[in-house]
Each structure stands twice: as C-alpha cells, then as structure tokens.
C-alpha cells in the first residue's frame, strides 16, 4: 500500500511537471500516451487494491470469528468450573448476557475494522514517508500536528473506555433482570407486574443513559479535535509551502514558472 500510494502521487507530479517544465514541450500524442499509461496504472492499482481489500476483510473476519469462538469456549469452560458460591453472588442471567454481548463487541473490534484501521495507519505512515523524502522541511512542519491529534485521541479514548466498561456492567444487570422476568413470565402476568418490572428495567437504562451522555463530550472532543487538527494541517501545509515556494523562487527563479 505504501509504495502504491507513493507512486500514485509521483504519477500526479510527473504529469504536473510536463505542464510546468516549459522547455521540452511534449507533443499532444506523447502527452496522451503518458496519460493513457498512467490511467492504466490507476486501473491496475485499484484492481490490486480491490483484491487486497477483499482479502484482508475476509481474512480478518475469519480470524475474528475464530478468536471469538475460542474466547466464548474458554469463558464457558471457566464459568462451569467456578465454585457454587460464585453463582450465589452473580446471577446466571448476567453471566449469559455478559458473554453474548461481550463476544459480539470483541468480534466487531477484532474484525474488518482492524483491517481498515491498519490500512489507515499504513496510509498515514506511507504518506509521511513520501512527504519526508520529497521535502523534509515542509513535511516536518506538517507532522507537528500529528502528536496533538494522537495525544487528544489517546486521552479521550481512555475516558471513553472507562465509561464504556461501566455501561457494559449496567447492561449486563439489565439483561439479567430481563432474563429473570422472561423466565418467570407466568408470575409476571399473574401479578400484573409488567409496569413494575419495566420501571425497574428503566432504572438500568437510565443509568446507562447517564454514562452514555457523559461519553458525549469525550466523543465530541475526539472527533472535533481530529478534524480541526486535520484542517490545521492543511492550512499549515499551504502557508509554509507557499512561503518555501516564494523563498525557493527567489533562490532559483527558473525552476518554477507558474
């Protein structure tokens, strides 16, 4: 992926160079030939990308399903060997809800998202590698925005994770209540306890909601900072790039015509 993107950018640059070069004016036929060549490159590249993305998505999905299955098995095995007093304290219902919700979350986290995120990181790294090899000064200035993004995201994710764990805890309690109510549905109906149980369930949902709302600001900071830092990076790049260009023009006027 790294090299592919590096080349991609080079394709653009070379094309730009023909326009800007000035001295050896390219013939229309030659220009078309070049365009066709690079267009075909694009096609090949994206066929390759398609195949690779398909591969990594299916591989990660298979891997995550297998890992989650292993976890589920180990979990059930561990539950079954616990001493009886463990079950006196925690209700079997919450144990069951725990494993089903947790396993699903883990599967999502281990699945194709990993592939997508890896792709993202690879793009990030390769882009900076290319940037640095092309002109380390401008790249260095632009990269200064990255630590800010990483730190902000890191902090918000840490808080987010704590809240998420609390929410999971509440959900497992809510699940066990629901399980208990449904397993003794005859009693619930006989005593007309729908309202009461629903109110009880609502208490859990409200508790989860409180944590969910607390998550809001963290997610807000996370996304907004990511995007603001992204745009800061753009502007920095433009600003400093132009400055360097101007200075470069002064140093060597012939290089840049436009």
């Amino acid at each position, binding site marked *: 992926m790294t090299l592919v993107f590096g080349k991609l*950018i*080079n394709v*653009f*640059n070379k094309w*730009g*160079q023909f326009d*800007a070069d000035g001295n050896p004016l390219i013939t229309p036929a030659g220009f078309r030939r070049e365009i066709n060549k690079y267009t075909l490159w694009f096609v090949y590249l994206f066929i390759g990308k398609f195949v690779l993305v398909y591969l990594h998505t299916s591989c990660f999905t298979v891997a995550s399903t297998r890992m989650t299955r292993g*976890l589920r098995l180990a*979990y059930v*095995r*561990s539950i*079954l060997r*616990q*001493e*009886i*007093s463990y079950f006196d*304290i925690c209700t079997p219902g919450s144990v069951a809800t725990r*494993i089903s*919700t*947790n*396993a699903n*979350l*883990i599967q*999502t*986290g281990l699945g194709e*998202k990993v592939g997508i*995120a890896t792709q*993202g*990181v690879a*793009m*990030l790294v*390769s882009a900076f590698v*290319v*940037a640095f090899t*092309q*002109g380390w*000064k*401008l*790249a260095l200035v632009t990269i200064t925005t990255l630590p800010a993004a990483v730190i902000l*995201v890191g902090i918000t*994710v840490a808080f*987010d*994770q704590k809240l*998420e764990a609390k929410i*999971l805890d509440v959900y497992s309690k809510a699940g066990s209540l629901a399980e208990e109510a449904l397993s003794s549905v005859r009693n619930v109906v006989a005593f007309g306890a729908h309202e009461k149980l629903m109110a009880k369930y609502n208490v859990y949902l409200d508790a989860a909601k409180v944590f969910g709302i607390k998550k809001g600001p963290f*997610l807000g900071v*996370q996304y907004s900072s*990511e995007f603001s830092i992204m745009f800061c*990076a*753009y502007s920095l*790049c*433009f600003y400093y*790039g132009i400055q*360097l*260009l101007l200075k*470069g023009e002064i*140093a*060597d006027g012939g*290089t840049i015509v*436009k």
Partner: protein
Amino acid sequence: MDAVGALALDLTDFSSIFFSCIIATSSLTIIAPSIGDFTKAAAAAKDVLQMIAREPCIDSASIEGIKPDKVSGRIELRNVNFKYPARPTVQVLDNISMVFEEGKTTALVGASGSGKSTIIALAERWYDPESGEVLMDGHNVKDLNLKWLRTQIGLVQQEPVLFNDTVYANVAYGLYGTEMANLSEEEKRRLVKEACIEANADSFIETLPEGYDTVVGERASLMSGGQKQRIAIARSIIANPQILLLDEATSALDPRAEGIVQAALDQAAKLRTTIIVAHRLSTVKKVGVQESCVIECC
C-alpha cells in the same frame, strides 16, 4: 531543476507533499470511527479475560485429588462450622458433627432454613466448611478428586431439571463422567432401561408416544411432576452411585405421585448410603425408615 540550498522547493515537490498531507489526514478520518469499536472491544475483552483467568477456590475441572478404588459410602461431618459466602452474617451450621453410616438411610428433618440442604451441599462439596471436616470413607473430601467424588453421589432435588431432549438422553446424562459414558449406544440403552425400571418410570415411559425417544420439552413441560421426578431418579442412579442424596425429593408432588415416587426412592435407597432431607417429619415416617436414625438438626 535541482534545488539551490535547503529551502528550495519546486511545484512537483510541493504538490507531492500536499497530496501526502491530504492522504495522511484523511487516513486519520478512516481510523477515527474504528477507535470507538476498539475501545468497546477492549473493555469487553478485559471483562471476558478476567472471567477466564478467575481461579475458582473449588475447581470442578481439577484433575488433582485421590480417587479411591473402593467406595463404601460412609459420610461424616466433624465439628463443621459453615456460613454461606453470600450471607456471611448467618451461621448456618454451628459445630455440627454427624455420621451417615454406609448403606443406611438417614433422614434430616427440620424447619426451613435450619441447614438441612446445607449438609447435602457440603457432601457434594459445593462449598467448603469454614472449619471442621467433611469426610467420605475417612478421606477429607478436599483431598478427593472433585469429579470423582460427584460421580459417586446421586442427587435428586425438589425441582428436577431435565434438558430439552429425549427421555433416553436425559437419563443417559447420568453416565457422564464415569467409565460407562463410553459404552456403546446399545448397552447404554440397556442401562437406561434398567435404571428406569428401578425408578418406577419404565411403565409410564413405554406408554409415551415415542417411548424412550420422546422429547421432554422445554423445562420438561410435557411431563408431570411425578414423571419428571422419576426420570430424575433414574438419571441419579444409572451410574450406580454408592451415595444418594434426596433433597425434598417428594415435597412438590401431590399425594398420589408422592407415593409412587417414594416407592421408587425406597427401592433406589436400598444398599446405598442415603440422606433424605424433608421439612415434614410425616414424609419420612410414612416411608417407614426402619433402620435409620433420625437426627434432629439445629
């Protein structure tokens, strides 16, 4: 073309760097949405891994502990003190000592909450006593292999739990964990039939639409209480355990079913060390436990 000095930069380089920047920052937006999922997965994984790593203080999967070759089935409680871990303020057993002689039936009678079922729980080693010892044939149950110990004991509870499976399969579950679990299907069927005859269940099972292959339904809802209980008894005795624990086994039944189940239990209790827990003395007297000693507990 070549740059003059470190500051020099041409349009090629600039556009190259600019595109890199766009890709770099847009890759951040690709990563960002996944972070939430990773966070959730990490929290969930922590929970799951904690559970997986939890070491039980009584490990039913343990392969340690001795497995004596011969079992006579004498159970003894020696100066046992016990509180339930979930209710540490209530002293359930206070310095209790008692002996359940081998091959004999002993009834435990007492009011609810007097600790009768606790003795059964201690014999099964669901819990360890706070102090004192629980002994089986003179061995502390803590030194015995837990799986082995539990296969030596047949348990019949007030509310029998049957799985949503055939009658045959439900009874055959009683062989699990013993050497007999590896027998051929044919031999297992023979054992199931024998156990059901002993449990007074064979005659009614044969009248079921599909006999032993009838499915008992979710929570055995297709069976009556007495039928369920007799299937449960067959399951408890199929592996021929030396010890039989009956925890209020007939309490939930109507008088007629109680009589039938009681007859099955009497038959099953012969030659086995049997502990009967009942809250009504009448249940035990009606049975006619001639050679047993009745211990008033707590």
